[in-house]
Structure formats: structure tokens, C-alpha cells
């Protein structure tokens, strides 16, 4: 659906920049060059803003985890009995005996080179743990992201187009109900019903994990897909409502518009009016939401991953929290926030290309 709408909107943007009668390449270059320059300035401003945000995130994670607890080392040891010497060596190891500004500069310097310190519980560099877990998260949340976005757009379009009908009411109510359900609970319930099995339903899906561990080649892919089913169903069920509601309300906004009446007066089929005229215009708010959600793909779903023992970033975050493994928590916090910032910046940069009214 996005692929449908994007070229059309970009064409509109191009037509606007070209002016009424582009006599030739030289005539067209004038306004287009000016617009390109304005656009590049806009992009530069957005990227600068993102850089500022990234720095703010660095500062936050530094202060959040170092200043609020009265003694970070006590937090690290988590109440286990340790001697004074051990505490002091821990302080030295994490540079906590240095003045605050020195800690801060070395922290920022390290973070910029991708060094988030060493995890307490795994005794491995934080960055290694993160890169290890990233593919699993991307597989799980990426798959469900694509599915719930597509489902949300499809159902949102359908419900809005038949606004007030039985199927509209049913679909909206169903989506709202699933939207109110805690995702981790739905996951637990699905495990009980389809993995453990109750009554006549046999356990047909694995209770968790990414793989069974003894498959190779094509069988391995099937095995992973088999493990993927329940968590993906959970995430899609909880996630598609938001896209549906946004798509539905923005399409309803468009439906009274004159240009749709015009399109119908031209004799176009209802189907064509919807696909070629109404939906591309109604996509803009959905597009924004899609990028907001894209940022959260990396953050994964902490609880869903935990419930399904998925070896991704969310599960890692949960493990780090229960220790608490502060360097790992800090590193993950930074990665999660960075992903959101990058996705938002990407949306800001792409938005004027889709909607010529923005940012010029």
C-alpha cells in the first residue's frame, strides 16, 4: 500500500517544483535547485536536532544510573555481602573514585566509540552482548511490524470505507479490545493454550526460544519459523489496533472531500476512487505512526521476549534489570533511544518528499 502511494505523492511534489511549463532542462533547474537547497538545509537542521537529542540521551543515561541511587556500587552488589576492599576496587574499576566531570567525559568518549563498559553478569563487553542479541530482536519485531502495519492499514481502510456498517463496528471493537490487553499476558495465555495445551487442544508450538538446536539448513529455517509463530501472533494482535484507528480516522477525514466527489463524477469505480485517490492522501498520519513504531522495533518487546524466552534485546534488558547489571542496562537504554531518534529523523527527512506542504 505504501509502495502504491509513494510514487504518486512524489510525482505531485515534482510537478509543483517544476512549475507550470518546464521549457527544457535549463528552465527547470532554477526553481528545482532552489528547492533542493531548501530541502538540504531542512535535512541538515533535522540531523543536527537528532545529534542534540542523541547527546541528551547520553547525558540522561549517565545521570539516571549514576546520580539517583545513593551509591551505585551498593546497587551493583545488590545487597550481597562484600568487603570494604571489594567495594573500593569496584569503585576504582568503574572509575567512580574520580570527580564527576571526569567520569562524564570519559563516559561520553567511550560511548561515542561504541564502548559501553563491561557487563557485570556476563563479564563480556556490553556492545558484544548487544550485537549478539540484535538479529533475534530484528527477526521477531521486524516480522510482526510488517504484519501488523499491513493488517492495520488494510482493516483501517476497509472499516472507514464502510463506516458504520456491521463489519466496521465489529472490527473496531475487536481491535480496541485487543489493544487493551497486556501483551505479555496474551503471550502467557497463548503458551498455555497452544504450547502446553488444554483440553482437546494439543501443544503444537514450542513454549519459547528461537530454535530447537539440532536442525540445519532448510529444516533450521522451518524450525525458527515454528518458534516465531506464537510471539509474532501476540505482537500483531496487540499492535495492529493503533494503525487501524489512525488509518480509519484519517481516511474518514478525507471521505467528505470534494476531490472524491469529482473522481466519482468522472465515472471511476468505487474501488479505484479508494485506492488511487482517498488512500494515498489518508496515508500521511499513518506514515508518521509507522516511523514511530519503526523506532520501537529495535527496543523490541521487553516482556513478550521475556515471556517467550526469546534471545533478543528485550529479553537481555530484562535479564540485566533483574541483577541489576548497570552497564548493560545503560548500553541498552542508549541503543533503544537511539533507534527511536533515528527513525523519527528518517520520518522527518522523508516527510516533505511525500507531502510538499511540509518543511518548505
Amino acid at each position, binding site marked *: 500500500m505504501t509502495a502504491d502511494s509513494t510514487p504518486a505523492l512524489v510525482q505531485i511534489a515534482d510537478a509543483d517544483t517544476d512549475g507550470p511549463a518546464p521549457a527544457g532542462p535549463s528552465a527547470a533547474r532554477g526553481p528545482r535547485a532552489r528547492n533542493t537547497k531548501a530541502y538540504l538545509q531542512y535535512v541538515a537542521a533535522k540531523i543536527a536536532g537528532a545529534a542534540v537529542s542523541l547527546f*541528551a540521551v547520553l547525558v540522561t543515561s549517565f545521570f539516571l544510573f549514576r546520580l539517583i541511587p545513593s551509591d551505585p556500587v551498593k546497587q551493583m552488589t545488590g545487597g550481597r555481602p562484600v568487603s570494604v576492599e571489594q567495594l573500593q576496587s569496584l569503585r576504582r574499576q568503574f572509575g567512580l573514585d574520580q570527580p564527576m566531570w571526569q567520569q562524564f567525559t570519559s563516559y561520553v568518549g567511550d560511548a561515542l566509540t561504541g564502548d559501553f563498559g563491561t557487563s557485570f553478569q556476563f563479564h563480556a563487553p556490553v556492545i558484544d552482548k548487544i550485537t549478539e542479541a540484535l538479529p533475534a530482536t530484528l527477526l521477531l519485531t521486524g516480522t510482526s511490524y510488517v504484519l501488523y502495519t499491513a493488517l492495520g492499514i488494510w482493516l483501517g481502510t476497509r472499516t472507514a470505507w464502510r463506516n458504520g456498517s456491521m463489519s466496521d463496528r465489529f472490527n473496531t471493537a475487536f481491535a*480496541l479490545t485487543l489493544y487493551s490487553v*497486556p501483551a505479555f499476558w*496474551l503471550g502467557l495465555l497463548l503458551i498455555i493454550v497452544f504450547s*502446553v495445551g488444554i483440553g482437546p487442544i494439543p501443544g503444537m508450538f514450542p513454549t519459547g526460544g528461537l530454535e530447537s538446536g539440532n536442525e540445519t539448513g532448510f529444516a533450521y529455517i522451518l524450525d525458527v519459523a515454528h518458534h516465531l509463530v506464537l510471539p509474532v501472533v501476540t505482537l500483531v494482535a496487540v499492535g495492529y489496533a493503533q494503525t487501524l484507528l489512525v488509518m480509519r480516522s484519517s481516511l474518514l477525514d478525507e471521505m467528505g472531500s470534494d476531490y472524491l466527489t469529482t473522481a466519482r463524477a468522472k465515472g471511476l469505480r468505487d474501488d479505484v476512487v479508494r485506492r488511487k485517490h482517498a488512500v494515498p492522501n489518508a496515508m500521511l498520519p499513518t506514515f508518521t505512526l509507522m516511523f514511530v513504531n519503526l*523506532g520501537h522495533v529495535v*527496543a523490541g518487546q521487553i516482556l513478550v521476549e521475556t515471556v517467550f524466552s526469546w534471545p533478543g534485546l528485550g529479553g537481555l534488558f530484562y535479564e540485566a534489570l*533483574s541483577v541489576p547489571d548497570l552497564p548493560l542496562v545503560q548500553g541498552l537504554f542508549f541503543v533503544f533511544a537511539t533507534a527511536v531518534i533515528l527513525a523519527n529523523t528518517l520520518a522527518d527527512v522523508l516527510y516533505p518528499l511525500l507531502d510538499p506542504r511540509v518543511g518548505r
Partner: protein
Amino acid sequence: MTTESMPTPTKAEPAQNPRALARARKRQSAARFWREYSGHRSGLWGLGALVLIALVAVFAPQLVGADSQSVTGAPGGALESPSGEFPLGTDQFGRSVLALLVWGTRVSLTVGLLAAFLCVAIGTVVGIVAGHFHGWYSTVLMRVTDWFLVMPTLVLAIALATVMDRSMWTVVIAIGVTTWPTTARLVRAQTLAVESRPYIERARALGGGHGHIMVRHVLPNVMPLVLAQTTLVISSAILTEATLAFLGLSDPTTTSWGGMLQDAREAGAVSAGDWWYLAPPGIAIALVALAFTLCGRAIESVLNPKLGVAR
């Protein structure tokens, strides 16, 4: 809402004092709001469910007994299936799951309401101030808002709850301070719209200061929007509370629905297939969250009929 022109009912008695007039207008406006709200069937369902749930929370001791949360001297055996005596079975300590469910209503509603109140209060103040003043402090405020907006809410809330003491207030604060930016942006947009109206200029010309204009003129006009936003925030706050409690970041001594789910998971209810222990807390969370969402959507569509919420 309150400033829209009314049929002037006071032509016959011009001596009526302005306060009584204002009261009459407010009453009329409320009556009209209720008339339109009651046209939304789903909104009425949500409201009815909320009244019922609130009653359950208030009368929890009378309904299931004040001592049903105590682990010592629990009436049943561990993890019993539903029976006549325990309609939803028992937990690993032999307490009735139904009784715990009733008690959990209190925590979920309290945390949901307080967190939403905190969130909306911060959002409204920041939004109005950022919309009213121009120049650098508005820019700074909006920068701070944007910065909170890009933080993954749940991650930030979990981080806050980790570094603070385990208590109900920690959860309230963690949810409140991480969710306000959306409200702030909404309120700021509405403030900008209100401030461009002529009566604000009139108030300024008559010598109204910043405080007067923000509190007496802007605030009443953003309140309806804030009300709709509050009901929507409550349902997400209740979901976040359940999540934090499930992670064990809430007060372990009070019974909450998220905490019950955590207990159930730790007791091995998942692998044993004890659905009667796991299903009810989740259904309760979903019901409350859905009820608040339905109310919020109905209020929203009364205020902005273009949204086209199904009646």
C-alpha cells in the same frame, strides 16, 4: 466548549448578576455535553463498567473480607482448580484468586488515576506555558518535551523504577514523568489556537497579566481536551502499571493484577496449564483499560465530531 454562544436566556431579567449567569451557562453546557455523550453507546458501556469497577474497589473489604490477602491462614490448598468455594481457584499460598482479583482493583485504579493525573498535570502546565510565552523559554520547553518524547517510555519507566525504592508511588512517578510529552504537545497546539482569538487580546488590553490569561482564559478552553486525554492516558497507565508489577518493580506487599500475573508465572502456572490463575487478572486489566478507552473516545468525538467514532 464554555465560550460558545448560548441562547441568551436572561433578556427578561437583565439585573441577574454575572456569576449566576456564568453558572447557568456552565450547567447548560454540561447538559448538552451529556446529551451528546449519551448518544455514544460504547461510551455509555465504558462508563457503566467504570462505575461498577469503582464500586468493587471501594467495597472490596465487604465483598471478600479484609484478611483475604494474608498469606498465613489462607483458606484453601495450593493452586486448587475452580470449585464452589473458590470460583477462580487458589494461588500457591491457598488464597482465593477471586478475592485477590477484587483487591487488585484498588491498586490498578489508584495507580492508573494518580499516574494519569500526574502526567496530565505536567503536560497541561508545560503545554500552556510553552504555548502562551514566545521566545527562548518556549523553545527550551518544547526541546525538553521532544527529548522526553523520543525516550522509549516503557524503558525509561523501567529504568526509573529500578533506581528508586520499590513502592506504589515509584510506579506512579515513573509512569507520570515519562508519559506527559504527548499531552504537552496537544495542549500547546490548543493553547496556540485559543490565544489567537480576539477575546484574549481584549483581556490583554484590559490589563490582564500572563497568569490571569493562562488560568482564566486559556485553561478553561483546553480543559475539555485535557479531560479526553486523561481518560486515554489512564488506560495506558493501567497497562504500564501491570507491566511494571509483572517485572517485579512495584511494591511486593500489595496485591495488584500485574503482581498476580508475576506470582502465577513464578508458581509455574504457565507450564502446569493453570489457566484459571492466569486468565482473570489479564481480563480484568483489559476490561478496565477498555472501559477508559471507550469513555475517552466518546468524549473525544463529542468534542470533535469529525473523528467519526462509531456510536
